């Protein structure tokens, strides 16, 4: 296999279509070589080497799977499992977490004696979004490295040593009192569900209900991050309910699979009871009253036509929206121009 400058064994094996499991690695992070799940055998080397942090070299012969590697991986994953919470093997949405999925894929034993929980939690962290569940953490440090290297705020760090190793903040403060911007990147990168979303919608979804993902574009700012809406198809009486929003994999354009606090967490407006649900028409007494779609549309068309007839087409104005889609903006300008003959159409472009 040819390779480029600075490419790691992992980069090359991936290009070759070989599966090498990784736990502590994320494409957005500098390789840490910490979890050892990605060990491969390099011809001539006595010890197995981590694929994620070893640079490819000329003439290198690499084996990604053989008995020795498999046995090493099974034992390693079993060790991680004893450090992970016991109980059912799914995380909150009916799908196994990365660690469980990996353990199953590589046939790791699951019956080893569990370790007593020694990691500290932060029970008084009252931020509304992010929860740290110490019993699931395996101290892979993906979250803290993401917080430092990608989000650039270093709000969380690894603390303590040995089996007490935990994810903490300066003085174990709640995230609100740190530099945290609540981007939720730690939740996205965590392979075990230890960093989790606190949102009630997720908490409510019964674990047996599988969620399905719909890739879409964030509706908040002009970056246009891609996001996956996780839908509980049975929710809202079968209309479907947004259970949570997750980020697509690293490398996804335009934002490398990252999201900010708004994109990731500000979605419960969708199911908010205040949503407008029925057309309204103002009656003779000046009150807005419920109407059918037919009545409302007819009233809208009639009202606009009446003003056009009395004051001319340029007495009408159409305000479109930079929150709505291209198609919708297209239709509003066409409505103004074609149905009513005026160029009085604009939107809140500046704000």
């Amino acid at each position, binding site marked *: 296999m040819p390779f480029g400058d600075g490419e790691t064994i992992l980069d090359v094996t991936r290009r070759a279509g070989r599966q090498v499991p990784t736990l502590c690695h994320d494409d957005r992070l500098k390789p840490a070589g910490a979890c050892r799940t990605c060990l491969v055998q390099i011809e001539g080397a006595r010890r197995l080497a981590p694929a994620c942090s070893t640079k490819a070299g000329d003439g290198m012969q690499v084996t990604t799977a053989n008995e020795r590697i498999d046995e090493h991986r099974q034992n390693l994953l079993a060790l991680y499992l004893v450090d992970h919470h016991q109980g059912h093997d799914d995380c909150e949405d009916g799908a196994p977490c990365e660690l469980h999925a990996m353990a199953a894929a590589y046939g790791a034993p699951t019956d080893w004696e569990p370790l007593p929980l020694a990691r500290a939690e932060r029970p008084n962290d009252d931020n509304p979004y992010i929860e740290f569940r110490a019993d699931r953490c395996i101290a892979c440090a993906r979250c803290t490295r993401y917080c430092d290297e990608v989000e650039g705020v270093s709000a969380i760090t690894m603390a303590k040593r040995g089996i007490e190793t935990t994810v903490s903040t300066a003085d174990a403060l709640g995230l609100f009192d740190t530099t945290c911007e609540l981007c939720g990147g730690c939740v996205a990168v965590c392979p075990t569900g230890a960093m989790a979303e606190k949102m009630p919608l997720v908490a409510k979804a019964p674990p047996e209900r599988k969620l399905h993902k719909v890739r879409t574009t964030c509706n908040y700012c002009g970056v246009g991050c891609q996001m996956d809406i996780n839908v509980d198809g049975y929710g809202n009486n079968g209309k479907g309910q947004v259970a949570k929003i997750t980020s697509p994999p690293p490398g996804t354009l335009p934002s490398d699979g990252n999201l900010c606090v708004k994109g990731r967490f500000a979605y419960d407006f969708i199911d908010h009871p205040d949503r407008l649900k029925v057309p309204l028409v103002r009656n003779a007494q000046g009150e807005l009253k419920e109407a059918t779609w037919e009545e409302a549309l007819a009233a809208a068309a009639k009202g606009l036509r009446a003003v056009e007839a009395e004051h001319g087409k340029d007495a009408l104005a159409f305000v479109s929206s930079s929150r709505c889609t291209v198609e919708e903006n297209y239709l509003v300008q066409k409505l103004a121009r074609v149905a009513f003959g005026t*160029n009085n159409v604009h939107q809140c472009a500046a704000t």
Partner: protein
Amino acid sequence: MTNSIGEIRDADFMFVIGSNTSEAHPIIAMEMKRAVKRGAELVVADPRSIWMTTIADKHLKLTPGTDVWLLNAMAHVILKEGLCDEKFIEENTEGFEALPEVLERYTPEEAQKVTGVDAAVIREVAIRYATTRKAAIFYTLGITEHSHGTDNVYALSNLVLMTGHLGAASMGLNPLRGQNNVQGANDAGATPIFYPGYQRVDDEAVRKKYEAAWGVDLDPNPGLNLNEMMKVAGTTIRAMFIMGEDIVMSEPNISHLEEGLNNMDFLVLQDIFPNETMRFTDVVLPAACFAEKDGVFVNSERRMQRVRKAVEPPGQARADWEILVSLFAAAGTPLESQTVSEIFTEMTSLAPKFAGITYEHIEKLGHGIQWPCADDESDGTRYLHEGGVLRGRGLFTAVEYRPSLELADDNYPLVLSTGRTLYHYNAATQTRRAQGLKVKQPEAYVEMHPKDAGRRSIGDGDWVDVVSRRGTLRCRALVSKQVQRGCIWMPFHFAEARANLLTIDEGDNVTGTAEYKVCAAEVRRVTGEPKPTRSSDREVEFLPGSFYRG
């Protein structure tokens, strides 16, 4: 943006002006942080101390509204130091001759007097900008929301053109769009002067094309822009159709607008939540939100990306496009295109910049398409102006400094700016309803310098009245050194204290964008048991709660 978001991390010099990037565009800020970690230089020009200034190499803390002075002084230095890219100017631009004469008086020393930024710093930043190849400029509303917003942009593009920082990766001029689909709304022709794809309504050939396609006669005269519409609402404008905007919350000088809306004959509102504008509305059409419909958004880097329906809208609500299709029919002018993808293709097929972009093409590429796009073989355009400037030649426009429309005086000695914060979003109908976001920033506030607060006996957290020539509103004081002395700042997200009651509706004479960023104001401490004020006693006529839940 002339560049792509992914190019930012490779920039070597970033000049950020009038953009509270980490709050308004967190992901762009993330890319900038990456560049800084790599060793790139970051210069932030902003009247306030903001998060970005904490990681910046330099913070140019300029007096609000003096951007042209700062930028012209930088151009002055580049010119005097002989750092212009003469070859680029010769081959790609026109109008350079007019520049030296205008720039002559904009010396850094004079600029220091007006902007408050040290002359030596201006000089150094100008030289660093001109001599770094991968140098990119970023700006947002802090630049455009001025009566001289267009001048600010000209002054910026002069800098770009004179140094030839255009037409390659990680350099150029990058406006960061505020709302998700500002780019797309403009692309789609929701403007009084353009059909889709920036084709002018007063261009005869273009108009003929659309007349043929749409089968009607079209008006050759440009219409009113938003700012003009709002000023004559209730007088010349007698009826309005509004989709997805809470104009009472987001437009400047609300008192005037509310009076106008009261005098309107007819108002249709199409939105996802009840809002402040609903008080004046005759027909309300309940719409679907982004998760409940299909369509396309276009991001700041001109990338057309799919929005996909994930769940059904609540109650009887329908997608905006569906409602519009029905409204065409109800108005007696039914449409041929009936599905979103047909509507999209209808739009792109008539606009050369979007040629060949269809839903299938977007799906095929898998990462959206950055226009311009030549045909259905093309995969779009990563950065604009490659190999020469797009409009033929880049035009220099020499600009003179004009003071803001309203300057501080004895009665209103403070300069008020408004802006957004990370945890809320514009009129906030969406994010104020998202429960976590309320916790982090629950209340409206006005930020003021300790010295200004002290002189008025105002303590941190006190209730205050913020007063301008147009109105008064009540909120809490946040005493902080983030703002300069003489300046105050308010977020504009809160219905109970609408910062736009105070701002001016006089706008930029080219774009019609109102001057949200600068107006004169005063702050007074409220004594006794204060209550937040409302601008109008007409309440929204909410029907019984269960009605909304049905």
